[in-house]
């Protein structure tokens, strides 16, 4: 079996126990610390990354489930930090402590990829799994809505 993962476009050879959660593989083995630990039980969303474009909670995803796939973390979401969501996050001044925001952005990115024109309710449903203890929720929702509009404009 192959033991290669493409992480942010770069091939990595997995040389750890395949049961290690992807979160700890990223953070402790690859020093990709943008992905955060919050709960370890898929309850908070802080650790959200993409596997083949889909949001997963990396704290409960064994690294061997990512083998042969493309993993994207916050560090690789865009080339120069200019994904419409990243721009909207700055424009809406979303972060307080900022700790949850990588997970929020990664979750939102996958949400918009699946549903480019979400309603307010769909945004809420899609983001319900991401906790922000600082309480930046309304700004997050506004940022997602404005990024969605941006992305539509670029398309048309």
């Amino acid at each position: 079996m192959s033991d290669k993962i493409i992480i942010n476009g770069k091939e990595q050879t997995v040389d750890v126990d395949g049961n290690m959660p992807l979160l700890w593989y990223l953070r402790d083995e690859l020093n990709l610390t943008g992905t955060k630990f919050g709960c370890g039980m898929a309850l908070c969303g802080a650790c959200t990354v993409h596997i083949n474009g889909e949001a997963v909670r990396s704290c409960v995803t064994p690294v061997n489930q990512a083998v042969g796939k493309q993993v994207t973390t916050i560090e690789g979401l865009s080339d120069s930090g200019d994904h419409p969501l990243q721009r909207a996050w700055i424009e809406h001044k979303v972060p307080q402590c900022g700790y949850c925001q990588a997970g929020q952005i990664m979750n939102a990115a996958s949400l918009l990829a699946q549903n480019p024109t979400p309603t307010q309710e769909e945004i809420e449903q899609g983001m319900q799994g991401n906790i922000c203890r600082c309480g930046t929720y309304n700004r997050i929702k506004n940022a997602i809505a404005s990024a969605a509009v941006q992305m539509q404009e670029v398309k048309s």
Partner: protein
Amino acid sequence: MSVFKLSRRDFLRVSGTAAGGVALGVMLPAGNATAGHSEHFEPNAFVLIDSEGNTTIHCGRCEMGQGISTALPAAVADELEADWSRVTVLQADGDSDKYGPQATGGSRSINTMYVPMREAGASARMMLVTAAAKIWQAEVDDCYAENHFVYNRKLKARLSYGELAAIAAELPVPEKPALKTKDQYRYIGKPLPRHDLGKVVVGERTYGIDTRIPGMKFAAIKHVPVYGGSVKSFDASEAEAMKGVEKVVNIPRFQAPYGSLGGIAVVANNTWTAQQALAKVKIEWDRGPHGGYNTNAYKAAMVEQVEKPAKPVFKRGDLKAAFDAAKVTHSATYVQGHLSHSPMEPMVSLVSVTEDACEVWASTQDPEGIQRTLGAYLGRAPKDILVHVMISGGAFGRKFKCDYVQEAAALSQAVGAPVQLAWSREEDTKTGYYHSTSVQHLEGAVDSEGNVTGWLHRSAFPTIASTFDPSIEWPREQELGAVINHPYGIRNLEVESGHAPAHTRIGWYRAVRALFEGFAFNSFTDELAYQSGMDSLEFFRKLYHNNKDPDQAEQVERSLAVLELAAEKGGWGKELPQNQGLGIAVHYSFESYLAMVVQVEVIGDDIKVHRVDCAVDCGEVLNTDGATAQMEGAVVMGMSLALYTEISFRDGEVVNSNFHDYPVLRTSEVPPIINVHFAENDYKATGLGEPGVPTFAPALTNAIFAATGKRYRSLPIKPVYS
């Protein structure tokens, strides 16, 4: 407060560049009394401009999301007429001789640092202007600073700050720098973005948990589940046989206020291995003296206690006569549970202890506390502990206490390498320093005009002081100060306290006692208004107007102003659809004034907050966006604690473990409209990290009462473990 120039040597050291430049330090009166112009002068805040014009401002206070590392440096930059895009903000290492007190709590940073930081900026600006005048051989009055340049009106010439820095550095520091007037502000009072927003959105902002140094190991810990207990025995053979495991360490309880509770930790080559191995250690605990702690029984016993006469603390007037003459009398008892701070980044630190050095990287609110605690633990001078203050992924008072740092130090000693210890969410939830559970019994007397003539306030709660001295089993008198000195005008007042021994570690939580005091004062006021057949707003007004004490005139005036502002903006008295209600609350804490109007809809068990209007008086607002964000966060945290959050103990152990049974507010329940209105005045700037939280819960429960007639006197409204 005074502003000093740094010696050339200091400039080199802090700027890391040999190029000339100007570097100013600020000395606070509370700082090092021996500091002076000597070679060894160590100022406590830095403003640095090098010959390229690059400007560095050190933030001595700890950043945890409250935005202090933007608000204070921006005030410096404003007075300096610096171009914000040329400014780099650096988080200062722990060194109170240099930076003044760095402990960041009590909403005090802005209160104490705002003016000194501005004066530092203004001094530097004046020196740059003087330097330019010298070069041009012009009058200083013909020169002015603007956005990183000094201009000469007559010559129509300009010089950049970089060109001027070396010359400015030779000039004396102005004695009394002239501060800007409000209309000249460039950044103060504006919605300036956080200085490092760009880093956050690409995952490059480094928190304590993100520290990586060569040779470091990773650790996980399981604490003694009952406060005061210990490890009876443990079998680590299976764990130690695992690949990657360095060592299993028994960390004994360290009997200091911020010392470890004690427990078993595993050091390994990564976090996951440490966690896996820890689960394989078989541990038998000695449960110690608090194994009988049961919060529901404890609260019930405290309620019983405060519904009877307790220990008198304060007395004014003749309460009995007031009650005898009253038209309306009423009593109620309010109850609140323990809270866990639960910041999204759990407790994490990296410590390296060697024979002659100790270096710490920690998300912390109190680097000095780390120096003291590790100094005591290692038997070294606090100054010899080097603390790098890392950005906290939330803290809310929890990261004031550095037990997690002392544990990492013990582990580093045990394995002879730097160790990063990261607590699991379960450990964070189960073995924290909790906000006091509390009960308050209030009795009120109202005359025929709707004036409150008598007020009895009986409180019982385990005190924070018990964490420092377990023999303290009663709230101390100063902890009832906000009750005794409440700005209501009530002639006859009695305050009593009840016996409340602590069975866990009690600690500061965002807003501290104001959380339960604000709840009791505002709920009971609303109840008395209802009992008296009066409108709540009118009833609040009377309570403040009746205070004729000149010493409290400012408090009364400012409380009334935010009350009126919230009422006006929140549409007090407006027609509402069925099942909806408005609630109002006002509270003064940490020298700031808050009022809120909450609009709620209640259908069955479903509580929906449609709108919150916050009126805020924190004096001059440094950063309108930062202040607004603090209020939005306060509403969310206020709603979490009003509805859900409570730490429950059974048989001495915390029952909750993670976000499924310590549920905090999620996005769908957040009020869609949170309006923040600032009072316009010229009072001095005060903090806003905490004062926003206390008013939310009572405004909500008052609104629920208005909508349904149901009164919630116990928080949270929907406890997980009832």
